[in-house]
C-alpha cells in the first residue's frame, strides 16, 4: 500500500503545516484549508463563506487585484478555490521552481487581506457570485435540487439546511464590515492547515513558510462551530414532489448518516459503491440494465463532520418513465442490499484501490487530502490508513449500515416530473 510521507509542524502562531516530499516530477502543490464553510454562516448571511472566497482573489497588501492569477499563470501554475459546508480550500499547483511564489501569495492574503479590500471589488464579486448562482441553480433544470433536499433533511436553524451558494437576498445585503469581520473571525493561522506536496526541499520550504506565514500574528481560536444535536436518522419518510420545466423525470433520495469521523463510515462508502457506483452496481444493474427505466443512477455519501453527513441516491428516468416506478424499483434495491455478497464488497474495494492510487499521482490531490484529513479528522496521516480501513470492511458491516440507514424511517424523497405542456 502506498504510504505518503507526512511531515507535520505547528508554527508558533498556531498554523499547522504538512509537508509531503516526492522528487519524481518537477511540480509542487500548495493547499490551504480554512476550517470555515457555509455551516458557520448565521441566519441572514447565507453564501458569505463563498462570497468571501471570491474576495480572497481581489488583492492583498502587496498584491493588486488580478495579480494573483497573473503571477501564477505566468509561472505555468493552476489555481483555484472551493467552498463547502465545513471548509474553504485554496490551492495551486506550480512547476516546483515557483513554489516560493505560491507560498508568498497565500501568505500575503492570510496576513494582508484587509489592506486591499474595497467596496468596488465587493460590488464586482457580488455580481459575479450572483451570476454563478443563476448559472448553476436558477437557470438550470433541477438546479434547485440540493436546496430543496437540504431543507428536507435538516430542521430550521440547522447549519446544513442552507446551500453553500446562499440566497440572493442575503448576498445583496453583504457589507464591507461583514467581509472584514468574516476575515478576522475565521481566517486566522490557528484555523488553517497548509499542505505542500511534491518536489520540495524541506529546509528551504520550511524557511519560506516561517518567513512568510510564521510572521502573521496569532489572532486566537475561532469560535467552536455549533453542532446541534440531531436524531441519528430522520425518523420518517419525508416527500416533496415538484412539477417543473425539466426534460426527464428524476428522483433524489437523501438519508441522514453518521459524520465522517464515525468508525462506521468506511462501511458506508462500500455500501454506496455496491449500491450505485459503476455498471456492476445493484442500482445500475436493476434500473438501467434490467428494467431499462433509468438513464442514469448513482449513490454516494457526502462526508461532513458537523454531527452527521448525508447519503444521496439519484436516478433519472428515460422519457415516459413514471417517477413512482423509479422510486419503487429503487426502494426494492435498498431492501435487497441486505443480502450483499462477499464478491460485491471485494469489487467495491478493488475500485477504491485503483481510484486511490490513481488520484495520488497528482500532487494537487495529495496536498488536498492531507489538508482534508488534518482539518476534518485532526491527523493528516489518516490518508495512509484509509485504504486499510476500506479493505477491512465485511459484508456484515455493510448489511448493518444498510439496516441502520436505508430504512423507511430515514428517507427524504424529492421527485421532479416534467411539466405537462399545453400545446
Amino acid at each position: 500500500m502506498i504510504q505518503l510521507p507526512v511531515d507535520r509542524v505547528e508554527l508558533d502562531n498556531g498554523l499547522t503545516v504538512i509537508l509531503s516530499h516526492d522528487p519524481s516530477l518537477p511540480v509542487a502543490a500548495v493547499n490551504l484549508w480554512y476550517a470555515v464553510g457555509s455551516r458557520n454562516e448565521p441566519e441572514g448571511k447565507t453564501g458569505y463563506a463563498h462570497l468571501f472566497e471570491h474576495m480572497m482573489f481581489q488583492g492583498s497588501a502587496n498584491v493588486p487585484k488580478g495579480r494573483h492569477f497573473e503571477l501564477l499563470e505566468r509561472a505555468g501554475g493552476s489555481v483555484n478555490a472551493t467552498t463547502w459546508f465545513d471548509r474553504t480550500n485554496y490551492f495551486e499547483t506550480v512547476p516546483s521552481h515557483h513554489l516560493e511564489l505560491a507560498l508568498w501569495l497565500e501568505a500575503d492574503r492570510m496576513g494582508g487581506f484587509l489592506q486591499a479590500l474595497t467596496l468596488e471589488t465587493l460590488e464586482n464579486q457580488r455580481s459575479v457570485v450572483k451570476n454563478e448562482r443563476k448559472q448553476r441553480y436558477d437557470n438550470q433544470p433541477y438546479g434547485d435540487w440540493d436546496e430543496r433536499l437540504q431543507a428536507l433533511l435538516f430542521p430550521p436553524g440547522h447549519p446544513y439546511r442552507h446551500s453553500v451558494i446562499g440566497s440572493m437576498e442575503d448576498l445583496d445585503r453583504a457589507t464591507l464590515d461583514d467581509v472584514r469581520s468574516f476575515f478576522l473571525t475565521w481566517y486566522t493561522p490557528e484555523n488553517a492547515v497548509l499542505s505542500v506536496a511534491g518536489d520540495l526541499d524541506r529546509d528551504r520550504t520550511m524557511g519560506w513558510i516561517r518567513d512568510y506565514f510564521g510572521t502573521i500574528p496569532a489572532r486566537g481560536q475561532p469560535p467552536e462551530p455549533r453542532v446541534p444535536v440531531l436524531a441519528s436518522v430522520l425518523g420518517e419518510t419525508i416527500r416533496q414532489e415538484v412539477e417543473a420545466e425539466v426534460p426527464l423525470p428524476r428522483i433524489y433520495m437523501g438519508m441522514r448518516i453518521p459524520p465522517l469521523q464515525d468508525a462506521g463510515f468506511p462501511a458506508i462508502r462500500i455500501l454506496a459503491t455496491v449500491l450505485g457506483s459503476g455498471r456492476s452496481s445493484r442500482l445500475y444493474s436493476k434500473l438501467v440494465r434490467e428494467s431499462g427505466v433509468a438513464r442514469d443512477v448513482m449513490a454516494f455519501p457526502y462526508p461532513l463532520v458537523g454531527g452527521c453527513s448525508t447519503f444521496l441516491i439519484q436516478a433519472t428516468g428515460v422519457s415516459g418513465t413514471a417517477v413512482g416506478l423509479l422510486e419503487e424499483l429503487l426502494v426494492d434495491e435498498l431492501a435487497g442490499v441486505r443480502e450483499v455478497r462477499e464478491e460485491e464488497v471485494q469489487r467495491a474495494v478493488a475500485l477504491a484501490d485503483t481510484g486511490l492510487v490513481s488520484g495520488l499521482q497528482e500532487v494537487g490531490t495529495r496536498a488536498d487530502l492531507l489538508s482534508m484529513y488534518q482539518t476534518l479528522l485532526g491527523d493528516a496521516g489518516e490518508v495512509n490508513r484509509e485504504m486499510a480501513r476500506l479493505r477491512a470492511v465485511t459484508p456484515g458491516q455493510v448489511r448493518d449500515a444498510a439496516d441502520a440507514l436505508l430504512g423507511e424511517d430515514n428517507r427524504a424523497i424529492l421527485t421532479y416530473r416534467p411539466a405537462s405542456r399545453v400545446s
Partner: protein
Amino acid sequence: MTEKRPRSVPPEPGPVGPLRMPDVDTRHLPQGLTFHLVKMPRLPVAAVSLVLDAGEAGMPGPEAGWGLLAGTALQGGTGQRSGDALARALEGAGSGVGVATGWDAVHLELTVLPERLPLVLPLLMEMVREPAFPQDEVKRARERRLATIRQRAMDPGALADDWAAAEIHHSDSPYARPLGGTAESIAKVEAADLVGLVERRYRPMGGTLVVAGDVEGDEVLAMLEPLLRGWEGGPLSVQAPSLSLPRSREARVVLVDRPGSVQSELRLGHVGVPRASPYHASLRVVNALLGGTFSSRLNLNLREKNGFTYGVRSRFSFRRGAGPFWVGTAVDREVTAAAVGEVLDEVRGLRDQGPTELEVASSRDYLAGVFPLQLQTVEDVAGRIGSLAVHGLPPSAMVEERDAIRGVSVEAAGEAARLHLKPEEMVVVVVGDAAVVRAPLEALGVGPVEVR
C-alpha cells in the same frame, strides 16, 4: 552577496527542475497498429489507451451519432459474456473501460493496477473485437441516448453549444450536427447497424495502442500477441469535402427563445483552422490571452471589470478539419446585448491592434509552464500520446508542441490574430428570453436577429 528582497516584492523563481520525459518504446505491430509502451514506475498503476480511426466525422448524415452510440453500446456485452458479466469482470479488477467517441477517432481508455493488467487487457480486446450488441441492450442504449438528447434541449448551455455548431458550420459538414446525433438519426438505429459499423470501422490499421505505467514492455507485448492475432484491416477514412465549410460569412444573431431565462447563454463563433494548420501554436497563444486563461482580456473585461458573468472562455477546436473557434459565456439577461458588444470589441481589438509583448510572453510562459502539470499521471501521458496519434504525430510531439509555443513571437501571434479572428463573420447565438433581450440585440446592430 545578495541583497535581501523586500517582502512586498514577489519572489523570483528558483532554478528550473529537470523534466525527465518518460521513455517511449514504439513498435509497429503486424496488424498495422502502432504500440507505444511508456515506462512510468512512480506509482503502481497503469493506463491503457486504444485509439481507432472511427470518429463521428466519418459517419454520413442520416447515421449521425451512430458511431458514438456504438461506442457506448460496447458495454452491452461480448460473444463471451453478457453486459452484466462484463461489468463485473472489469470492476472486479478495479477497472472499467471508458469509451469516448470524438469527431476524429474513438478512444477506449482504462486505468488499472499493474498486476491486474492481464485480467483487463483481454476484456478490452473482447469488447472491441467481439461486441455482441444484444437487441435489448441496444434498445436501452438508444433510449438512454434519446433521453440525453432531450436533456440537452432543455439545458441552456448544451442547447447553445448545439445551436452554435449548426449556425457556424455548413449544413453539409458533420461538424454542424451534435456529436451524439439527433432524435431522428438515433431513433432509426438497430442492433444490426452497430454490428456492421464496428465490423467495418473498429480495425487496427492506422490505430494506436498506448500502455503507460509501472509495466514491462515485453510482458505487455506477450499479453497482447494472442489478443491481436487475426485482427486486421483498416477503416476507410473518408473526409467529407464540406467538412471545413462555414454556413455563412456574415455576422448575424440567432436568438433561441427560452422564456423565463434569468441568464442568456452566449456563443460567438466562426470556423477556425484544422490541427495541421501552421498557425496551431500561435493561435494557442492568441487564444490564451483572448479568453483561455483567468487573466485573459475577455475574463478581465466581462467578469472582473463588469461583473456580467461567472466566467467566459474562448477556444479553437483543433480537429482534422477546421473546427469552430468560439467564445462562450452565460450572462445576466439584462446585460445580454452589452456583453455581446464587449466580446465583439475584444475580438476586433485583438485582430486589429494585435497583442502586446507582455501578453504574448505571459501566454507563452503559461502554456509552456503548465506542461509538466498536465503530464503527471499515466492517464495524462497515455491520453496525450493517443490524441497526438489521431493527427499522425509521434509521442515526441509532446515536447515539440511546447517548444513551438516557446518560439511564438509577438509578430507571429499578431499575424495569427489578424488572419484567423474574424469578427465580421461571427455568428452570435443567444439562448435566452427573447421578450427581454431581442430589442437590445437589434439595437446593437451586429446583424439581422433571427428568432428560433
